[in-house]
């Protein structure tokens, strides 16, 4: 388990005194001892009963029958059963009607009106620079001849984000106000986020059929959790002093919620909105696999004809939309706390500004309609597909093999496969199942409580029970290998960026693009460079997970108390010593978060890896979707959730419950 090493050491909070550390260490020893005794008793028993090294078949449950029957039942009853006719059908209609309404509005505004409106709103809430970005972004999507798909995606996104925010805020409200609901909610939200979207595309399609309603609902499932989490966090984190004061003024519960708790939580609420938007956009392409139309569909269709240039032309507007929306909501969040004077001239504030925006947009719309077409003029476009494809060819020709000294990408991929992936996979598959359970139990118990250990072990056991032990071990080996590469690169770049403002500024747009570029776009170049197999899947995962790790590392290192660094320096420590002995230990929580995010993101791409020869669980999920096999796809999806849960518990020390029942 190479990748787990950065966190495998026993949990010791850096600010605790030495005596407690020693106690913790010995507690860790005690835990190991208990496990060893349990193993000594249980392993011979297990071995005697099921002597095989892989998961015993007696202990599996085959879900093929029931899941197959479920999917048959849905297909047979979809057109007649009251559940569909009176409830889901209306839900589906409501989605179609709202998306259509928004789309018609966008078409009515025309390219002039939409561009002007978005630019003005961005100016109002986020400032001139972001307004310029917005203006440029919409112009670019027009120039790339992607205006109509962009409007389709925008319409879908607006409705999806509104729905996600409503659902997320309601869940978050419930979780923020009630301790019990919060406890129930947490695992649900965990599952919603870890469950690969691919796995629930199929059930959603079965119920709603392909098309916009299914795509929208899948997006909401994926995008609502951050809103729910941050709403709950904001409400729970409200300053008790303020609440006390409000109560003493005789406010009722609802007044307290509306006048104190929600306003106090507005920063978290806005951050939730921001995250929801980003998640929803990242679903735009995946949802196109079930007929969501728009930009994602263009990317997906281009992929089918192996046309990277065309895919990029459709992906660029997605990236730009994401950047504009991200910057606008983030800036709005920052401005919220600032005093009114800092928000610019009076003319740009309050209702007057909004009215001004409306009037100006209407004027520009009218001007656009008078001048001619409401869609982007077809003469003002630039075809980038050909040059992009030529560039890709050139790159592949020069990097694939025979590069002096370092070797070509194909050689790297082959070495990575045979030196890292193969041994790791063979090792994990050869590991007896009870051995794997023991390792998971030990690791998670050492850094957490017996509860987290139990969750992790049960998640691992569930994989065996579902009968997908072998492919899961294969997937796990890919995740661990990709995670190791991601962490090494991510920490290295993060440390460099933390030391240099300029590097960070250069990196920012690059990371933005890496984070928001749909993975489908780089699948083809990745295959061309690394050949079909597990290596390109790992490469795609690294590209996707790297930005988050770099960002969190940089931020964590930056936030280390300058006084501590200063004192270290004044004691004559070199830069390296300061980094190693002061900065890194103090930034430990951030680094652990980076590991955790790395796990989640790498796992998310493992599925996509199924499309380039990654095999294992990812391939099963893709196959399930492609062949309508609910059992295959869903079981593999659940196994991925279990892997995610297990890895999360093994990499995240629990600060939630450090006293009491532990050990």
């Amino acid at each position, binding site marked *: 388990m190479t990748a787990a090493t950065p966190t495998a050491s026993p949990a010791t909070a850096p600010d605790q005194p030495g005596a407690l550390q020693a106690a913790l260490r010995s507690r860790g020893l005690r835990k190991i001892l208990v496990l060893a005794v349990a193993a000594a008793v249980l392993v011979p028993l297990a071995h005697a009963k099921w002597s095989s090294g892989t998961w015993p078949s007696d202990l599996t449950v085959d879900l093929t029958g029931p899941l197959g029957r479920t999917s048959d039942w849905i297909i047979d009853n979809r057109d007649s059963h009251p559940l569909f006719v*009176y409830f889901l059908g209306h839900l589906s209609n409501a989605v179609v009607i709202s998306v259509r309404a928004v789309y018609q509005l966008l078409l009515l505004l025309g390219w002039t009106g939409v561009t002007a409106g978005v630019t003005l709103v961005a100016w109002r809430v986020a400032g001139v620079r972001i307004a310029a970005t917005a203006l440029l972004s919409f112009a670019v999507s027009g120039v790339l001849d992607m205006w109509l798909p962009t409007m389709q995606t925008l319409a879908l996104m607006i409705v999806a984000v509104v729905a996600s925010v409503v659902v997320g805020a309601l869940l978050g*409200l419930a979780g923020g106000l009630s301790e019990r609901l919060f406890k129930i909610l947490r695992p649900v939200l965990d599952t919603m986020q870890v469950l690969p979207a691919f796995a629930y595309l199929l059930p959603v399609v079965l119920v709603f059929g392909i098309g916009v309603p299914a795509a929208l609902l899948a997006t909401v499932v994926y995008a609502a959790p951050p809103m729910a989490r941050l709403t709950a966090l904001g409400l729970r984190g409200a300053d008790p002093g303020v609440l006390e004061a409000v109560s003493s003024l005789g406010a009722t519960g609802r007044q307290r919620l509306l006048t104190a708790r929600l306003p106090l939580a507005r920063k978290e609420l806005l951050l939730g909105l921001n995250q929801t938007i980003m998640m929803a956009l990242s679903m735009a392409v995946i949802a196109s696999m079930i007929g969501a139309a728009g930009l994602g569909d263009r990317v997906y269709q281009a992929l089918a*004809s192996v046309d990277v240039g065309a895919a990029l032309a459709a992906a660029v507007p997605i990236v730009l939309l994401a950047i504009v929306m991200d910057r606008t909501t983030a800036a709005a969040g920052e401005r919220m706390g600032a005093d009114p004077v800092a928000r610019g001239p009076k003319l740009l504030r309050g209702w007057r500004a909004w009215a001004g925006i409306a009037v100006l947009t209407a004027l520009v719309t009218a001007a656009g309609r008078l001048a001619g077409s409401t869609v982007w003029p077809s003469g003002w476009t630039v075809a980038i597909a050909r040059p992009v494809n030529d560039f890709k060819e050139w790159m592949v020709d020069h990097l694939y093999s025979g590069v002096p000294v370092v070797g070509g990408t194909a050689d790297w991929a082959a070495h990575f496969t045979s030196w890292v992936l193969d041994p790791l996979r063979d090792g994990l598959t050869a590991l007896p199942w009870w051995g794997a359970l023991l390792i998971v139990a030990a690791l998670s118990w050492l850094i957490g409580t017996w509860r987290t250990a139990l969750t992790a072990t049960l998640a691992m056991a569930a994989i065996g029970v579902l009968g997908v032990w072998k492919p899961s071990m294969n997937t796990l080996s890919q995740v661990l290998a990709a995670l190791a590469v991601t962490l090494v690169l991510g920490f290295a770049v993060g440390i460099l960026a933390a030391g240099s403002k300029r590097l960070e500024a250069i990196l920012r747009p690059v990371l933005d693009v890496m984070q928001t570029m749909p993975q489908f776009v780089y699948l083809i170049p990745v295959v061309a460079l690394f050949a*079909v197999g597990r290596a390109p899947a790992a490469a795609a995962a690294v590209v996707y997970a790297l930005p988050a790790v770099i960002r969190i590392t940089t931020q964590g290192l930056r936030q280390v108390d300058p006084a501590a660094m200063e004192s270290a320096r004044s004691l004559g420590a070199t830069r390296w010593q300061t980094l190693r002995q002061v900065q890194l230990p103090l930034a430990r929580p951030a680094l652990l978060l980076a590991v955790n995010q790395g796990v989640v993101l790498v796992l998310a791409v493992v599925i996509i890896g199924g499309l380039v020869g990654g095999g294992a669980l990812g391939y099963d999920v893709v196959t399930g979707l492609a062949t309508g096999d609910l059992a295959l796809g869903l079981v593999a999806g659940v196994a991925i959730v279990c892997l995610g849960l297990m890895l999360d518990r093994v990499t995240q020390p629990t600060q939630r419950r450090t006293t009491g029942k532990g050990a």
Partner: protein
Amino acid sequence: MSRTRIRVLGAAGLAGATLLALSGCGKADMTKQGSPFQAQGGAKSVTLSTQTWVGAQANVAVAKYLLEHELDYHVDTVQVDEIPAWDALSQGRVDAILEDWGHPDQEQRYVKDKKTITAGGGNGVTGHIGWWVPKYWADKHPDVTDWKNLNKYADQLRTSESGSKGQLMDGSPSYVTNDKALVKNLKLDFEVVFAGSEAAQITQIQQFAKQKKPFLTYWYEPQWLFNQVPMVEVKLPEYTDACAEKGAKDPSSIDCAYPTTPLQKFFNTEFAKGGSEAAAFLKNFKWTKENQNEVSEMIASDGLSADEAGKRWVEKHPDIWKKWLPEK
């Protein structure tokens, strides 16, 4: 606190009841839902399903161009995998599939039992699945084109993914394949490696060809890639009805080649019976492998958009498509 909770729960309950009341006021037919991006009311519109392989895109490109320019329809295309496409067809989300490679289970369920889908006859192209090796390699080793000699060459076909065995590359999981059973039953020293998507498989084949490396791949005709990378088919044990019957009962027992499949069109029943010009046109749509490849190659190899490729073909071959147009 507790009072707040009661209020919140009450509000949630109220909201739920409202939704129920709203949705309870009438039936909602799940099969009658169009796309929000469809053309404005009044316009005649057709939705076609396109699959990920380029041949299917070529059919749709030409049909779309003619429907739009000769019959004044608005055409939506939806890209979905084959089985979900059948489901969409039965629900009326899609009006027609123009190229199906044979899905007996789906045919039984939707065409024979539920009658929500109607068979539309062949599209004129015959499909064939098989194993192929590149011509540059087969020229050097002519005996590689018989499965009996494949084990001799397993060494040369090793990759880091196939380990100690030779690599037989398969494509998208949605394609009909018996390759795992074939490798086992024919006792071949090969490992089936799934590229996971046709795009990945094509990219890999092109890469191998550039390097003049040997490879063995699951592939099919008609396919434009043959024009770029000439390939020779490997002879598998002959396809017989007895073998097919055995395979239908137990797919893991198959030990013969793939059949040749006349590719079929399927329509949503309501669409087919609706008597529209579009339905009549799509029923008449029938061309040849050469026609299809001409369009496919424009799309996949020359980098034209499907619309543009469809247009160019239509402009060049009026003699062929004039026959498809319904009589006025």
